[in-house]
């Protein structure tokens, strides 16, 4: 199969896992810093916020990839 007709290359390269990890960390920090009271922010992120939208299918795939990548890194001993 020709390389240029394979969507897997583009799909994989566009999945920026390093950027995702940073965003994921910042989202978790924001969540932990905000209290769990009645006046706490809703789970729906606003358009301008840099929080991850877990209802987005691409984010869910990235989360799965993050877990597998971590496991791969452990196998390869890179991290």
């Amino acid at each position: 199969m020709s390389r240029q007709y394979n969507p897997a290359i583009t799909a994989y390269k566009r999945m920026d896992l390093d950027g995702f990890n940073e965003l994921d960390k910042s989202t978790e920090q924001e969540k932990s810093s905000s209290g769990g009271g009645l006046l706490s922010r809703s789970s729906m992120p606003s358009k301008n916020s840099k929080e991850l939208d877990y209802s987005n299918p691409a984010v869910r795939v990235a989360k799965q990839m993050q877990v597998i990548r971590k496991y791969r890194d452990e196998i390869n001993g890179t991290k």
Partner: protein
Amino acid sequence: MELSNQPSFDAPIPGQSLTMELGSRPWQSPAQFTTVDETIDYYMERMSSEDFMLQLADVLEMGTPVTVLANTIQMSSVMEGVHTVDVGMLVLPMLMEMIMMVGDSAGIQYDSGLENKDKPKTRDTLIAKVISDYEKEVSGAGLSDREEKEVKDEVEEEEEPKGLMARRT
């Protein structure tokens, strides 16, 4: 790409797809899994079986790129009516990561398929040309500096007095 002059008979006849009853093909009926989560679960379960992993390791060892494998797997699932094309596209990176993990755990030197081997390398002649151009430019700049100095000196020497009382030569 060079086109073969021989007619290919190993292809569907134009309009063949319309000869079957609508909905009789798996991809024409609603997909079995409609969400990314369901599809990921399906692949995780399928790929974690020992038979699949062994087959996958064999194929990887044969030198098949991971990208090709992942695309083939998702495309065959679309044809079987497991999930839609768009869900397949979304799941592709995860599939690739999973295949690479199988390769890593089996200790195989697999081809990820992400690097473009056909990409033309920088030609040696081009590098040589750039070097020669640079050298010319540098030496040219040196000459002009010297010339500029000489010109300046000459100008200073030949500068005539401009005052009213200046003596004319």
